[in-house]
């Protein structure tokens, strides 16, 4: 890096650091080892914080750390600059060991403006580090953020290690050789910040430079400016006599294997592609853009060479309708959406229940009701997935637990859908969708074959000895009806939303038949319990009094919280359910073994309500509805409280 311009002299102030003793320049030769660090990048939504965080994550992944991320951005594309509402943040937790969450409290906050500082300072860990772009702390910006006095001067940050760096002016100076106009040049300051943090945590730089060069390959001037800004930030860290040392978080001892860094939505899209291959069916996606699900549509649209057909429909209803039409024709129909879209698709999902055709409904849950909090996470669609249709209309539900698990959950949902000829809900959420983690790339050959045969022959003999096809003559074991696709001679048949005669599948208004069909559809879905794994109980000591029951994206926070509780000597059990309808066959037996059951959920107690109703257990809820995922510390406290309350 020595060939780049060194930063101009600046009047950098290093204030009130409890650890400020002897500053040594160029400390990178002997970085201090940390086992983990949580960094939050925060700025205006136009400041490129998501990009900065993403890139830091990627370089940490390549370095071999375990990691977990939490992007947090406003619903507005560009909220008013400098305001609290416009603050966009990206938190990443990197470690030298297996971690489960993006971290409760950042140990380092990078704040690009006063609003970003104000919105995030309350989360910073005690004695944590705050790095600010001091150029942005002018009177106007302070007022916009609602600061009466400059927090850099009024002592309010005295408990933190504060680094004031004039990022804007250094960036402007550093990128001059690129010839960029000042207004554009200033936009490279996020890469300056990335450079500083990359030095601070000893990240490899070559990969990031290559990434910048590839990303901005189409515009030489911007490319050069960004590379210069990144290098300037890195060199600033090394030479500015500001930081007493830098740090290293060594690679984590993960399971041997090949890894990639993957977000939940990408993993989910790949899982759908894999499911198509494993089911030997073409994937058909009917979808309407909606946050936070659109990235699945984007990703699938890139991979048409897998035979994937994507249709961006005119609305949510058409998206699921087209998917169901494709399933009727022998494709694996998929629709991707979030809660408001599920509302609209409801009638078609009911039709799919009646038609008994495979259909995947991917719901990336977000804060509700109504438009709610489009970019924030929540788990409040569980009861909608369970019951949100008229009539008795059971639909199986599968919920992934981590970003990488979205891949396997998609395959499992598809397996159930094609085997049982039923719509299946996959309940992910905004946190899983946008969060990323290192993911061990699975051995493709070890993935299950989930293909099922289409019907090809008549299956019923009429009174006159002639053969005919009965579309609702069920398989004795699975209760699934035959899947006869158009184009198959001799199996022509009509199906529809009207009640059908058991077996023959013709329209039937017979009361006894309707009652029978209702029970058959319910029994078919209930019977899937025989075909899914039992819940695994994580109870290392086997004598826990308290069981923590979770589902979906709370997995990481619960597991991390319980680690802490167990380190304190307590015995606590954890069960995380992946199949929410039907429940695994042993769930009831497991629950009744524990005197106390605590159910943390990002809703007001939906799973809790289900298990109380189903198993008559006195489960208690731990509920969070802030649009933010649980912190491990919140789980820890609630578990300790529950244990103490005995």
């Amino acid at each position, binding site marked *: 890096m020595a060939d780049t311009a060194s930063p101009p002299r600046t009047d950098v102030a290093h204030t009130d650091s409890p650890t400020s003793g002897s500053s040594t320049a160029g400390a990178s030769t002997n970085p201090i080892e940390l086992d983990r660090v949580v960094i939050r990048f925060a700025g205006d939504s136009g400041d490129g914080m998501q990009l900065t965080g993403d890139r830091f994550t990627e370089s940490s992944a390549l370095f071999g750390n375990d990691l977990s991320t939490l992007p947090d951005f406003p619903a507005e594309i560009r909220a008013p600059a400098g305001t609290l509402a416009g603050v966009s943040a990206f938190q990443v937790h990197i470690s030298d060991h297996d971690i489960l969450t993006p971290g409760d409290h950042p140990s380092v906050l990078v704040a690009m403006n006063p609003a970003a500082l104000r919105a995030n300072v309350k989360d910073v860990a005690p004695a944590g580090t705050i790095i600010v772009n001091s150029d942005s702390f002018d009177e106007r910006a302070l007022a916009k953020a609602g600061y009466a006095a400059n927090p850099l001067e009024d002592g309010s940050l005295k408990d933190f290690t504060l680094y004031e760096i004039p990022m804007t002016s250094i960036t402007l100076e550093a990128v001059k050789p690129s010839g960029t106009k000042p207004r554009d040049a200033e936009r490279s300051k996020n890469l300056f910040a990335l450079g500083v943090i990359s030095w601070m945590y000893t990240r490899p730089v070559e990969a990031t430079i290559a990434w910048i060069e590839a990303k901005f390959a189409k515009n030489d001037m911007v490319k050069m400016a960004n590379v210069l800004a990144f290098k300037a930030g890195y060199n600033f860290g090394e030479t500015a006599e500001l930081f007493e040392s830098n740090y290293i978080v060594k690679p984590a001892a993960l399971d041997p294997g090949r890894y990639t860094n993957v977000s939940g939505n990408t993993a989910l899209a790949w899982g759908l592609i894999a499911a198509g291959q494993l089911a030997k069916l073409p994937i058909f996606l009917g979808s309407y853009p909606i946050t936070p699900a659109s990235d699945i549509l984007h990703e699938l649209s890139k991979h048409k060479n897998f035979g994937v057909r994507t249709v961006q429909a005119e609305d949510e*209803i*058409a998206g699921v309708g*087209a998917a169901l*039409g494709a399933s009727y024709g022998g494709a694996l129909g998929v629709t991707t959406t979030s809660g408001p879209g599920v509302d609209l698709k409801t009638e078609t999902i009911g039709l799919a229940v009646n038609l008994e055709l495979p259909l995947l409904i991917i719901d990336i849950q977000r804060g509700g009701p109504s438009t709610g909090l489009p970019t924030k996470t929540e788990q409040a669609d569980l009861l909608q997935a369970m019951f949100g249709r008229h009539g008795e209309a059971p639909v199986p539900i599968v919920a992934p637990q981590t970003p990488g698990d979205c891949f396997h959950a998609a395959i499992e949902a598809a397996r159930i859908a094609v085997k049982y000829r039923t719509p299946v809900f996959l309940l992910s959420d905004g946190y899983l969708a946008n969060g990323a983690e290192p993911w061990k790339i699975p051995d493709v050959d070890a993935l299950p074959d989930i293909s099922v045969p289409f019907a090809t022959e008549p299956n019923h003999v009429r009174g006159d000895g002639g053969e005919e096809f009965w579309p609702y003559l069920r398989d004795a074991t699975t209760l699934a009806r035959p899947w006869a696709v*158009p184009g198959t001679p001799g199996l022509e048949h009509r199906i529809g939303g009207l009640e059908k005669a058991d077996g023959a599948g013709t329209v039937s208004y017979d009361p006894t038949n309707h009652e029978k069909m209702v029970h058959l559809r319910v029994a078919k879905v209930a019977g899937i319990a025989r075909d899914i794994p039992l819940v695994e109980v994580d109870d290392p000591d086997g004598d826990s009094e308290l069981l923590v029951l979770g589902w979906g994206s709370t997995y990481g926070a619960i597991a991390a919280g319980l680690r802490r509780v167990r380190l304190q000597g307590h015995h606590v059990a954890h069960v995380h359910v992946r199949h929410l309808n039907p429940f695994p066959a042993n769930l009831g037996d497991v629950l009744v073994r524990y005197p106390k059951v605590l159910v943390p959920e990002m809703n007001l107690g939906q799973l809790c309500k289900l298990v109380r109703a189903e198993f008559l257990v006195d489960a208690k809820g731990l509920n969070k509805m802030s649009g933010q995922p649980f912190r491990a510390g919140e789980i820890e406290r609630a578990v300790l409280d529950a244990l103490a309350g005995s």
Partner: protein
Amino acid sequence: MTDVAVPVTTKKDWTSDQEIRWCPGCGDYSILTAVQMLMPELGARREDTVFISGIGCSSRFPYYMDTYGVHSIHGRAPALATGLAVSRPDLHVWVITGDGDALSIGGNHLLHALRRNVDITILLFNNQIYGLTKGQYSPTSETGKVTKSTPFGSLDHPYNPVSLALGAEASFVARTHDMDRKHMMATFKRAYEHKGASLVEIYQNCNVFNDGAFEAILTKDNRPRMLIPLVHGEPIRFGVEGEKGVVVTADGARIVEVADVGEGALAVHDEARPDPSVAFALSRLADGPTSPTPIGVFRAVERADYGSLVNSQVLRASDQKGPGDLDALLASGATWTVG
């Protein structure tokens, strides 16, 4: 395809064993018969034929055809048909719908199926009334219609389905009626043979809730002076003696006495005209079926159908990138190896 034998079928082969449950005297019967009689003539295969309907009296239609069929939900037949037609271009997909199903609850899907030019054949049974729910006004009912839900007369301005379809730039738009089997069969045949979305509006009498809605134009006596047959390449004229005709100017289409303007001034019907504005002008000749009304094919133009476009993109992706390789996909981001 020349080596594939055209299947020989009869009307009976296309008739399912289900008892028909329309009211006696309903116009739907003659439409069903026309379709069942047409199928052998088309040389169609039962297994490759799918009828998809929504909800309403007409939407029971698929149950009576011995083909593949889906009786779906209200207004959504074009959505299901889009998914099926795109993923199975080898099939022939028909959509059976009504004025309430297609133009009210399902208006959006109809517009987009036409806009995209999905390869489906849409038969729109227009009886200007809600029959299945026993007689409320529909989006094609004339303003002032007195029904159970509009005892003081309806206030809504009605749709003209042909105008609507032309406005959506549908590539094939036609109108026929349930009193003329020959005309229906000829029109359906054209719609069937059209590659892309074809919409046929069928004036259909609901003899229980809206009897005689089309009497003014469709009684045997009235037809010659009230129906304006559209014949490609022919001057547009009608009347008992052919004494009336249509001229089209920048102000639109209007009915004239041929004697007044001379035959040479009459518009010559060009269904293949790329710009839909003349067809639209013709569709505006009649506000409703009470004054001289054009029937036949308004528009038939060639435009790539949506399914072919989708599928050629899929093929092109395979050609360019090679067939999907799951291992390569999963390792397409930056990767690193542990241990």
